[in-house]
């Protein structure tokens, strides 16, 4: 490992420790007060206080406990200052548990799972699940989240404030759902993490640049979730899926940022350790014998990953996995992926027939649909219609590298 690498690694490690503490502390404070905004405020004040206190007094032996105690004091101080009647049972509990002695690490339970479920609660609008998680669990700033979601920073800031207000006012519970509710509630959490990863589509032509900068954050969130829910196969499936895609990051762009589609990527540029980890996770998930959407999506990526070992892509296997996905989790992306896979396994004609079965209205602004259509029409020698579809795909692309790639293909 070179010095630079080593330094970067250390830097990241420190960043991750800080990140882990942030989420744990916010989760613990918010689970008691049900007030996410005030928990975050108190913690940022505690972090500020640490910046002055620690260089002076030395870093405390239990930095987390120090931050927690300081943050609790801030919450209680503010409640007193604002002359708020401390009617909230939770705040009272928080005060009572606020002993003189800071709790030792094992006595400071990890409430992040409750926080994740609160962020993805049905009472919170679905498009805010991901931004809330990124802020509450990872401590990302609104401006950074806004960039990934293509809205101005102030807009995202306001939406986050509103969503946190909703958590408080609608009494969103900080709890792990009952068994009967668990599958659908867990699905919302997984969905939100996957949305942060920012790729509904990784293949033929469409990887959107937007949100990609959050890929590492999403993987980190999935690791946290796996640590908290080691028995849920879909959590493993989601992490496997994201690691497979992440393994190809370096191969996705060529000279001067040129876009390289999966079929043209050099598998030697893929990360073998990430692929191996993904494969292991997927195998562990399969042992539970409970198939799910993310395991299937990961299985598709696992078939593509065979190229890393010099093997050909088994398109019929991909078609079969997409077929299962269509049954248990139909979506425009899945239908398009199915058609693309069929085009490779059973010929362009079959692929086009599957594409034609998709509702055109729904696909009118869906970029991957037009990219796949163009690709299939071109293979069939239907140049005029292919150019038309290429135009639609180019016009709908928001990534300049993909636009450029398709312009060249169109000719």
């Amino acid at each position, binding site marked *: 490992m070179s010095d630079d690498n080593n330094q970067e690694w250390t830097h990241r490690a420190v960043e991750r420790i800080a990140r882990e503490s942030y989420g744990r502390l916010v989760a613990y404070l918010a689970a008691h007060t049900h007030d996410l905004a005030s928990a975050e405020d108190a913690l940022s004040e505690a972090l500020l206080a640490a910046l002055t206190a620690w260089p002076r007094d030395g870093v405390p032996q239990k930095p987390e406990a120090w931050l927690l105690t300081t943050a609790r004091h801030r919450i209680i101080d503010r409640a007193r200052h604002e002359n708020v009647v401390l009617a909230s049972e939770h705040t009272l509990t928080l005060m009572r548990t606020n002993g003189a002695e800071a709790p030792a690490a094992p006595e400071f339970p990890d409430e992040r799972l409750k926080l994740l479920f609160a962020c993805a609660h049905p009472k919170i609008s679905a498009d805010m699940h991901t931004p809330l998680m990124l802020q509450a669990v990872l401590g990302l700033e609104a401006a950074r989240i806004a960039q990934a979601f*293509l*809205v101005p920073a102030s807009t995202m800031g306001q939406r986050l404030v509103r969503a946190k207000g909703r958590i408080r006012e609608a009494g969103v519970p900080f709890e792990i759902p009952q068994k009967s509710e668990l599958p659908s509630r867990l699905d919302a959490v997984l969905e939100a993490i996957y949305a942060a990863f920012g790729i509904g589509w990784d293949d033929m032509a469409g990887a959107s640049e*937007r949100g990609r900068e959050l890929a590492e954050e999403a993987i980190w969130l999935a690791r946290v979730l796996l640590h908290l829910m080691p028995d849920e196969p879909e959590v493993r499936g989601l992490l496997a899926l994201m690691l497979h895609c992440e393994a190809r990051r370096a191969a996705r762009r060529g000279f001067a940022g040129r876009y390289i589609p999966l079929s043209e990527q050099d598998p030697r540029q893929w990360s073998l350790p990430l692929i191996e980890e993904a494969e292991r996770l997927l195998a562990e998930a399969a042992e539970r014998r409970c198939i799910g959407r993310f395991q299937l999506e990961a299985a598709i990526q696992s078939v593509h990953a065979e190229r890393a070992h010099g093997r050909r892509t088994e398109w019929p296997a991909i078609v079969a996995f997409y077929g299962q996905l269509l049954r248990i989790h139909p979506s425009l992306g899945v239908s398009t992926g199915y058609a693309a896979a069929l085009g490779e396994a059973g010929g362009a004609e079959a692929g086009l027939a599957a594409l034609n079965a998709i509702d055109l209205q729904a696909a*009118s*602004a869906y970029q991957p649909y037009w990219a796949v259509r163009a690709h299939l029409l071109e293979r069939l020698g239907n140049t005029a219609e292919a150019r*038309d579809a*290429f*135009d*639609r*795909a*180019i*016009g*709908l*692309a*928001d990534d*300049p590298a993909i*636009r*450029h790639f398709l*312009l060249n293909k*169109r*000719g």
Partner: protein
Amino acid sequence: MQFALLIYESPEAFAMRNNEDPDPYRGAWRAYYKSMLEAGIYLGGNPLELPHSGATVAVRNGTRRVQDGPYADTKEQLAGVILLELPSRDVALEWAARCPAVTVGSVEVRPLAPETKRRIEE
């Protein structure tokens, strides 16, 4: 809701208008235009001639002032206007992000103000 996409381009982008076909920038615009039409959101719009072809008129203290070129002397100049019918500002921002001009300039998204127009029409 109706939105205007105000397209701002750099002098380099204006200069690309004279490129011979096939030109990637024009190709991207052709595709973008087609996508808006096919999506059924396009209301109208047009590119503008080069900034120096224009003139700015103002009357101050009873004196009429006419100045060659655009009002503001900035690097990026208004290069075109597109009017779209869209469900929300978020969707308008998505369409702005697809505009080829974002890599060589910028696109401002502004809702139209039909209420203001209605008061004029009264």
